[in-house]
């Protein structure tokens, strides 16, 4: 099947139009506005004006739509980050993300991919001290909030995966191979109580800024998992979370060795029994999707 090609003049028009759309909205007046004075003359000239609306103002409709549509999508994908930062600041982060990683492909939700990386790439001062802040939330909790939002989104969007229930025949391999986390599961460690806060933001239509809670005295770990169309949270003991994390990279025997080396001597005696219970619970909860991908020279994976 041979597809016909676009004429050169259309490609030029689309390049100009696209560049206009992707020009950031002006924030200097305290609201987001399309600065039509910066529009390329050739494109403005190509568009029809009417008695009441200039051609530049007509192009501005699309210009605003581009940004506001994507801001709205990102606010929906990162509701915790948006409401901690406040929408004015969040939109500034979103604009930086979209300039760095413009949308590609047909999937609108994909515009949220790597937003947490874009946020981490911003100079910390710009994350912490962006204009319009009523809350003064600093960079570190916002980055953590973005990672929590991203984990919720990843789990929500994951494909179906059959839970892995190892049989007796898998026992030997379990000792020699790591495990693959189910795509419908995520492990999250937090320094502020953000996972429960994120789970409570069921109503995405509220827009008021929320205050950052006090940090935990020590980091907490959560297992995020999907059942049907809902995402649930399960608190994990730190050592349990550490074991689940290690099991993704190391065979069981080595993972247990690392864990044992990490715990104080007083905890070591109880560790084997606890580790067995944590492992059994993880299998029961459907945390695993199979054996980890085989490394070079190792046996093939499930």
């Amino acid at each position, binding site marked *: 099947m041979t597809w016909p090609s676009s004429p050169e003049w259309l490609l030029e028009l689309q390049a100009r139009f696209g560049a206009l759309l992707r020009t950031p909205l002006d924030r200097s007046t305290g609201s987001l506005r399309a600065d039509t004075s910066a529009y390329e003359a050739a494109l403005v000239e*190509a568009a029809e004006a009417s008695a009441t609306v200039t051609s530049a103002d007509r192009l501005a409709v699309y210009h605003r739509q581009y940004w506001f549509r994507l801001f709205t999508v990102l606010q929906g994908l990162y509701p915790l980050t948006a409401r901690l930062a406040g929408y004015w600041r969040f939109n500034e982060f979103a604009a930086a993300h979209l300039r760095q990683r413009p*949308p*590609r492909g*047909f999937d609108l939700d994909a515009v949220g991919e790597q937003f947490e990386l874009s946020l981490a790439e911003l100079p910390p001062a710009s994350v912490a001290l962006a204009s319009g802040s009523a809350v003064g939330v600093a960079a570190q909790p916002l980055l953590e909030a973005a990672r929590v939002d991203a984990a919720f989104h990843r789990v929500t969007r994951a494909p179906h995966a059959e839970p892995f229930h190892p049989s007796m025949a898998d026992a030997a391999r379990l000792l020699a191979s790591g495990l693959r986390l189910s795509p419908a599961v995520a492990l999250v460690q937090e320094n502020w109580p953000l996972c429960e806060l994120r789970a409570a933001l069921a109503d995405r239509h509220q827009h008021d800024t929320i205050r950052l809670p006090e940090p935990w005295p020590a980091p907490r770990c959560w297992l995020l998992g999907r059942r049907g169309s809902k995402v649930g949270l399960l608190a994990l003991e730190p050592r349990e979370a550490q074991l689940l994390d290690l099991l993704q990279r190391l065979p069981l025997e080595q993972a247990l060795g690392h864990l044992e080396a990490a715990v104080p001597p007083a905890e070591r005696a109880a560790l084997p029994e606890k580790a067995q219970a944590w492992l059994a619970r993880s299998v029961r909860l459907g945390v695993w999707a199979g054996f980890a991908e085989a490394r070079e020279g190792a046996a093939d994976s499930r």
Partner: protein
Amino acid sequence: MPQSLAREALGLGLRTRHYRELGEPWPALDYFEIISENFLSDAEGPRYHLDRVRERYPIVLHGVGLNLLGPEPPSSRYLDRVAALAELVDAPFVSDHLCWTGAHGVSHHDLLPVPHVPELVELAAERARHVQQHLGRPFGLENLSSYVAFKASTMSEWDFYAAVVERAACSFMLDINNIYVSSQNHRFSPSDYLARIDFSRVLQVHIAGHTREPSGILIDTHDQPVADPVWQLYRQAFREHPFPTLLEWDDQIPPLAATVSQLERAKAVRA
């Protein structure tokens, strides 16, 4: 052979907001339309809701990401996935827009206009013909709401639209609200537009609400009830030849029962 819809069928665009209300009770609708791109990934969540709906209603597919007039032709990978989804739900037809949505590797996620010239009739028709062939089922092209027209245009929008559909041997997915919005924005007669449409080739009609900006430009917002002038055009069109009618509501979405009641008005208008 895909199932077909009755010409008088009334349907609703399925949105995430509706999921929690489905089954409490199931609404009195003849069918649902889904946005294809919302179900093209292998994410389990959307598929769960889709499965519930398709057990009870016919489903048609409406795309926003085909990019028919983009610099690159529609990708085979994308079309394969749309075709598989259409097969899964046994869609009577698939539709998308006569527009471009992205260029040079960037998706703008908007329905963008082109100049209406014969050269682009050929381009759009040839591509639409390929799309219909690839999908293996009827394919409808939707007219846009537009806010910009180009001085380079040498044809009216309706002549351009009709010529593409006729040359591609595909169908109209006619949006009556879009006709009204564009007619106000570009000062043409919506009746002239309707007069150019061969209603025997209309797969489905969309109706929706719009908003007037302070500048006077009408925006296709889908966030309020269908406006009276749009209902008048709808009546005029339905009298030409009946067609399945689909209500789109994408923002400020009211409870499902209230949304469905808008379709009761469609029955009254065309009686």
